[in-house]
């Protein structure tokens, strides 16, 4: 009989935000924003190293990054950093035992104490705050 592992969905299962609630979605977003921010960080270090090429080299590079597309990418970076920060503080507090509730007898429907309304509010707040920060960033960059 062929071995069937029905529960193994791999990355597709991990990326599905509908089945496991907002906590799983936050877990996925935390990793995606982390990778995005690391890529931006490395690119930013390369970008700023152009200052060593003198005024002409710096201005040449600014012409590439200071464009509407560059501003949109920067706005996405702002959104990613705000979400990663706010959700990161939530995760840190959770690891420290803050806001995870008290242990109780497991009763149907077996909702974990840690996945309570406080953490859900924190996740939704992180999403709203990152959207607001992105809008502010766009206003600053396109307002000039």
């Amino acid at each position, binding site marked *: 009989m062929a071995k069937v592992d029905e529960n193994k969905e791999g990355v597709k299962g991990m990326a599905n935000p509908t089945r496991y609630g907002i906590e799983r979605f936050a877990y996925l977003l935390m990793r995606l924003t982390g*990778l995005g921010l690391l890529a931006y*960080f490395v690119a930013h270090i390369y970008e700023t*190293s152009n200052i*060593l090429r*003198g005024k002409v080299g*710096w201005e040449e590079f600014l012409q590439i990054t*200071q464009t509407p597309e560059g501003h949109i990418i920067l706005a996405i970076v702002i959104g990613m950093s705000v979400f990663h*920060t706010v959700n990161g503080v939530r995760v840190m507090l959770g*690891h420290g035992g803050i806001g995870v509730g008290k242990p109780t007898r497991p009763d149907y429907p077996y909702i974990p104490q840690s996945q309570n309304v406080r953490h859900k509010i924190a996740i939704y707040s992180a999403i709203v705050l990152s959207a607001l920060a992105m809008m502010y960033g766009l206003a600053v960059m396109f307002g000039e």
Partner: protein
Amino acid sequence: MRESLIMKIHYGTALASVALVAVHILFRLTQGFAESLQYESVIANYKFLPYAGMLEIILILLSIHGFNGLRVILLELKQGTGYEKSVTYGCIAAMALTILYGSRTIFMTSFGMV
């Protein structure tokens, strides 16, 4: 190093980075975003040693936090002694290279070698 200590470093570098990156962004906003990116303004920022020192600290903190985060993500995806060692040493090497390359920019600009 124990994983619990690594996570404490991860969280410590995160909190410190948030505070210092906020100062870094405020520098851009107080000057006006476009003006702050002008060549003379950027050079003046680097030559202001407390600010250059802060950039160096941000570089170290974010490199540690970022590459340790990458290590954690890669270890969540796959496990195994050889794989885990390669990921750990690969991330340490990438972190060191990033710090060296960024420090080169900060030191050369701060000490007027441009």
